[in-house]
């Protein structure tokens, strides 16, 4: 690990500095039209998100499909080039690095993809898939590779004799375990899990989520867990960020989000989570209309078109992120901080 740490890192920040720091990250996709590929507009997939992630912590990133949560994960990993903003890993800015300079940092941050079918090369055996990163970084050679791969297979609940099989010979859950083993092979400190369980059966989802949590406890991993299933996110996350149209609208720890959601959108989302108690009466908030287009977003607060509490100035003025309670951030005009000293997201 020490080798990949940048010398620019402030020594005092060693303990307090977050593992991952994202400041005002934006990714706008240009829409090109016509013969001359004129830029006709932008898809504001990710529009200025900020958060931090501490070592050993899981941050859940939830939102409807199309809200930009997957793009956010890929942009942080620089699999997609960000439009602007800053991404820091252990205090070292990485979003402006070239491919070659980025390489040492790739070891630190890995990814588990949503689709366990398309994310594994169909022409490589399971053992080769998991062992390849070791060869890329020259971490092991010869029989060491097989030993290390067998160890990783054991860690994710696969049998070492399955190393010679091809991805198509595995089930969806086993494939996702392979993807996790591949992500673990470089001993990363951060794993961006891009909806890792949404393509799986519900029974298998639980196994994979529990596997991720066991691995976190064992290796001290941090997860950026992108998902749309609130129940899964509640189970695995320490803190949760809710995204709507490319922005984080609420960011807080799991307990306060579920007990006291402050943003109207979060309220609506939570009211849709089924509760296994038929006696329990609950007011279901049904949002009207569809998610507005991320190309032509509503002025003011992006949520005002569907917000049951929207007021006049919501349509004009964009709400800023405010710390309403300690550690509980929300972007809504209707929720004002209890203490006058509001501060930006740290």
């Amino acid at each position, binding site marked *: 690990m020490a080798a990949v740490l940048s010398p620019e890192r402030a020594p005092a920040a060693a303990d307090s500095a977050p593992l991952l720091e994202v400041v005002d990250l934006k990714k706008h996709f240009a829409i090109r039209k016509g013969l001359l590929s004129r830029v006709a507009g932008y898809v504001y997939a990710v529009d200025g998100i900020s958060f931090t992630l501490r070592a050993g912590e899981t941050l859940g990133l939830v939102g409807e499909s199309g809200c930009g949560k997957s793009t956010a994960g*890929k942009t942080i*990993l620089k*699999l997609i080039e960000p439009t602007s903003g800053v991404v820091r890993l252990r205090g070292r800015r990485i979003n402006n690095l070239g*491919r070659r300079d980025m*390489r040492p940092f*790739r*070891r630190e*941050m*890995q*990814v588990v*993809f*949503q*689709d366990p079918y*398309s*994310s*594994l*090369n*169909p*022409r490589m*055996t399971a053992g080769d898939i998991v062992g*390849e*990163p070791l060869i*890329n*970084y020259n971490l092991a050679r010869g029989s060491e590779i097989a030993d290390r791969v067998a160890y990783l297979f054991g860690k994710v609940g696969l049998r070492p004799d399955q190393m*010679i099989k*091809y991805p*198509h*010979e595995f089930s969806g859950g086993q494939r996702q375990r392979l*993807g996790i083993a*591949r992500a673990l*092979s*470089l001993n990363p400190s951060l794993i961006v899990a891009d909806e890792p369980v949404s393509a799986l059966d519900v029974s298998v989802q639980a196994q994979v989520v529990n596997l991720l949590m066991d691995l976190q406890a064992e290796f001290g991993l941090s997860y950026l867990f992108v998902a749309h299933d609130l129940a899964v996110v509640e189970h695995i996350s320490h803190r949760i960020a809710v995204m709507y149209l490319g922005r984080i609208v609420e960011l807080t720890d799991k307990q306060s989000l579920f007990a006291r959601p402050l943003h109207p959108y979060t309220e609506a989302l939570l009211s849709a989570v089924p509760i296994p108690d038929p006696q329990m009466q609950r007011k279901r908030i049904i949002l009207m209309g569809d998610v507005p287009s991320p190309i032509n977003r509503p002025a003011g607060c992006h949520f005002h078109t569907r917000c049951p509490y929207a007021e006049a100035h919501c349509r004009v003025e964009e709400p800023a992120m405010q710390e309403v309670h300690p550690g509980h951030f929300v972007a809504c005009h209707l929720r004002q901080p209890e203490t006058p000293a509001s501060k930006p997201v740290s």
Partner: protein
Amino acid sequence: MHAPAPRPARLSPLNRRRLANFMANKRGFWSLWIFMAIFLLSLFAEIIANERPALVRYDGGFYMPIFKTYPETAFGGEFETEADYRDPFVIGKIDEKGWMIWPPIAFSYNTVNRNLSVPAPAPPSAANWLGTDDQGRDVVARLLYGLRISILFGLTLTVVSSVIGIAAGAVQGYFGGWIDLGFQRFIEIWSGLPRLYLLIILSAFIQPNFWWLLGLLLLFEWMALVDVVRAEFLRARNFDYVRAARALGASDAIIMFRHVLPNAMVATVTFLPFIMSGSVTALVSLDFLGFGLPAGSPSLGELLAQGKANLQAPWLGITSFVVIALLLSLLVFIGEAVRDAFDPRKVFR
């Protein structure tokens, strides 16, 4: 799925599976063996069809005229020049003090049979199994030598043009953008050049030989694979496992050749037999038109042209047709079997 047999082979399981799949395809498997046999025979054409005897016993000594040149004086003749073993005078001299063993076909590709009882082209006979062409040369010998040139030409052209084409297509598809755009426009212009006219113009300046023709056809042949490989790379570069490979620290070259290219291989390999047969056909047609190999060279195309010029001698046309059709069919059968063997989703029984 049958489990791969556990044997101490050095092949990877993937290649073992491919080999098993290939061998399961009987038609392709036997086509390969027949093709290899023909190729091997043609490689040893000098021993099978030669105007010099394989072994001479003369005056207590052994001579091997195929591998060494002996003057006529060595066999009691009068001239210092090389012995003509088909000359009745030399044959008589050798038979006096020894004997000769001839190859199965006692003619080379350029040997003129002067003992024909009918005007050339002569019909098939005991001496000339498939008759002679219009200059009295043995058709079997010319076929054997002609096959060798055709196969070697096709193989070389296929290998070199595939390597260039795959590399060009991979770079275009993987990097995309302006590289892709510029390269594509260049290929569009380049493929518009009339290659046949270039060859005709060239043959006015020089006598094109094997290497000239190879180089000239290569100038255009490499484009055959570019589009296929480019399309596969364009498709694959946004696959999750390619993204994952980048996240796992793989370099561009590793991603291109380890992750993307193997998946582009089915499409590529599917084209290879057609490129190979196309290369063979290209040489045949150039020879047929008279712009190919130098006059007198053994060639399938030249034999085909003779068949057309001598319709009264059907053995020329029929022979060349059958041989060319057989060669091309074998190549396609092999190609089909290879293509199926490379397909990971194909399950044989």
